[in-house]
């Protein structure tokens, strides 16, 4: 009798699981937005990414080649197994044609492998690991918006050129932070600058005071902040509390999104240098799109969300041009066409899957210079695409023919 209840309970659990695998017919172009809806990257991707994808579909027209376009979303919660199983299920059972966003490098790499096996497309806007276009490159994966190399090189070289010759680096103590720090040092030294010191901190450090004081006492022109997310926000906030920028030193953040600046507030973030792939206030096209985005989400788009919009739009154009949603043909069409959307002008996709786009060095405005809501960035200069990507000759991607 006791065992029977076990069986019923197990059957209920199984019934619950059954709901997860509903079959869908394949007369539809299905786009899956795999993102983080409630975690640390929810503001810079999350629901905004889903809205961006929907806006792209709307802009294109809701059908392509006579088939309807469907956008679904999944929350990977930064759990690799969950992200990988959602991706597998989407490709294998739910007939999803392309997955976009993925703001987590481990999950992105996992989906790269899954997409290769399933022979379907994936376009990364949220992930930043350079492994996606080097060791783990794939003919089905497109690295759309940014990578750690671009952020480090973009900010570092542009800031050194603008006069920041001596640097002190604050890096988070894991592979990502170490990579950012390494890339930054290389660029600074190559451009004739000097690294006065580097200090590493554990992830999710709450108190940056000792590190910031070290940075301050080093007398460096620029304090490079080679970390991401909450760590960047905390470091910048506490630097503001110490009055570091008021005393003449500049902060250069390797990864800083407009949403981060919004939560920091201009008094704390003012004067920080950063690299971005796009900014909502760059020109009339970006302004129109971003205002429509703001009405739906309540915030201006981050460069990652703008990237999701761009990737989905380009994909749909390629499906129309290729006349099919077969992955190989659409990939070829995507590579053949230049990328043009509200935020991008004539970008191209390289052999290793990397989108070559112009980046922008920006500086956070002072509170007095900011005239209206979300008027946070001043675009200092454009960083041409060639300067912000690893040259093909140095690429570790097996798809790239070695000359």
């Amino acid at each position, binding site marked *: *009798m*006791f*065992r*029977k*209840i*076990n*069986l019923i*309970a*197990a*059957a209920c*659990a*199984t019934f*619950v*699981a*059954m*709901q*997860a*695998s509903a079959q869908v017919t394949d007369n539809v172009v299905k786009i899956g937005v795999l993102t983080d*809806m*409630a975690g640390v990257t929810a503001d810079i991707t999350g629901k905004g990414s889903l809205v961006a994808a929907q806006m792209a579909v709307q802009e294109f027209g809701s059908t392509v080649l006579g088939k309807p376009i469907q956008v*679904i*979303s*999944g*929350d*990977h*919660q*930064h*759990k*690799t*197994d*969950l992200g*990988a*199983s*959602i991706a*597998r*299920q989407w490709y*294998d*059972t739910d007939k999803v044609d392309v997955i976009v966003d993925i703001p987590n*490098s*481990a999950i992105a*790499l*996992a989906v*790269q*492998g899954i997409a290769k096996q399933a022979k379907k497309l994936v376009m990364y806007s949220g992930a930043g*690991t350079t*492994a996606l276009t080097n060791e*783990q490159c794939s003919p089905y994966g497109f690295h759309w918006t940014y990578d750690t190399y671009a952020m480090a090189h973009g900010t570092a070289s542009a800031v050194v050129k603008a006069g920041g010759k001596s640097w002190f680096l604050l890096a988070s103590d*894991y*592979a*990502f932070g170490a990579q950012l720090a390494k890339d930054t040092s290389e660029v600074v030294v190559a451009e004739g600058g000097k690294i006065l010191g580097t200090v590493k901190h554990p992830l999710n450090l709450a108190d940056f005071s000792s590190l910031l004081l070290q940075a301050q006492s080093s007398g460096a022109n620029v304090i490079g902040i080679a970390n991401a997310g909450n760590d960047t926000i905390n470091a910048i906030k506490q630097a503001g509390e110490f009055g570091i920028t008021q005393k003449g030193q500049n902060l250069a953040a390797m990864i800083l999104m407009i949403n981060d600046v919004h939560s920091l507030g201009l008094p704390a973030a003012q004067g920080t240098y950063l690299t971005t792939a796009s900014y909502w206030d760059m020109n009339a096209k970006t302004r129109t799109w971003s205002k429509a985005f703001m009405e739906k989400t309540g915030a201006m788009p981050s460069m990652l969300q703008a990237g999701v919009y761009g990737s989905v739009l380009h994909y749909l154009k390629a499906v129309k041009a290729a006349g099919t949603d077969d992955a190989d043909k659409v990939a070829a069409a995507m590579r053949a066409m230049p990328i043009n959307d509200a935020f991008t002008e004539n970008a191209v996709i390289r052999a290793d899957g990397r989108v070559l786009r112009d980046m922008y060095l920006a500086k956070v405005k002072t509170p007095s210079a900011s005239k209206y809501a979300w008027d946070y960035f001043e675009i200092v200069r454009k960083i041409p695409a060639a300067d912000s990507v690893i040259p093909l000759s140095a690429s570790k991607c097996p798809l790239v023919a070695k000359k």
Partner: protein
Amino acid sequence: MTDSSSVKSPWLVSTAVTVVCIAGLVLAPFFLYPILLAKLLCFALFACAFNLLIGYVGLLSFGHAAFFGIAAYSTAHALKEWGLSAEFGLLFAVLVSAVIGFFMGLLAIRRQGIYFSMITLALAQLVYFFCLQAPFTHGEDGIQNVPRGLWFGFIDLNNLTALYYVVATLCVLGYLVIWRVVNSPFGNILKAIRENEPRAISLGYRVQRYKLGAFVISASLAGLAGGLKALVFQLATLNDVSWSLSGEVVLMTLLGGIGTLFGPVVGASLIISLESMLAGSEFPLQVILGLIFVVCVLSFSRGIVGEASRIIKRKKSVLHSLR
């Protein structure tokens, strides 16, 4: 009518139930997505291994993800870099988690109660930090694209159904190991230690050895679950050694029923299914899990299976007293 006949021949019912369960396991991949099922089974085994410690020895370990994760990394590394076949990779993973379990247990069992839990947490964080920094784990990228290869040289594990059956067989074997440990003299002594350790000592049992033995068995089985998971998903990442996974397995076991054999399976199935179902919807999964946890702890603290079996036993005893 059925009640009295099942009271007379309980073994008939339990055999029937076992047959139905096995039939369910065999037929499941034809109705449900095999990867999801394999994931369910891995986490069910993980939860059962955890439950061995807390349910039957009374030791709450906050660091079980260390064994799960280090085994996942070991399997992934062995299969990818050393080219071992899956069965040896898993064997290696179980050995690694047994060894780590041995050393962790050696330190942790010297204390009881909350101190034991905190020591396991601290040691698990050491393992996490090691995995974070060691070059072979590739940090946050994790070990990706682990080849599945052939099982015993002839079963192609890239066929999802074949993979599911191999995983199911191993998980059932793991479950049987736990069942055998619990229903044995060794298991009885473990329960005695849980109930009253000083009495067990006074009876002459070397309780530290028994506790260490149970710890190592639990760690090895958690390692088997981790290795299988790396095989199923073809990756091993920092999530697998993180504290949040240790917390999740506690939740799974609590929901299912601490101290029941089948409880953790139900708890794990429920949580993994919910995760899968709600991933594509607007509902905040963490909030829902939290609510379920609160409801479970407040209203049925014995877990789903625990409460269910209590109700059955009460019905049985009422029937008995009426006869």
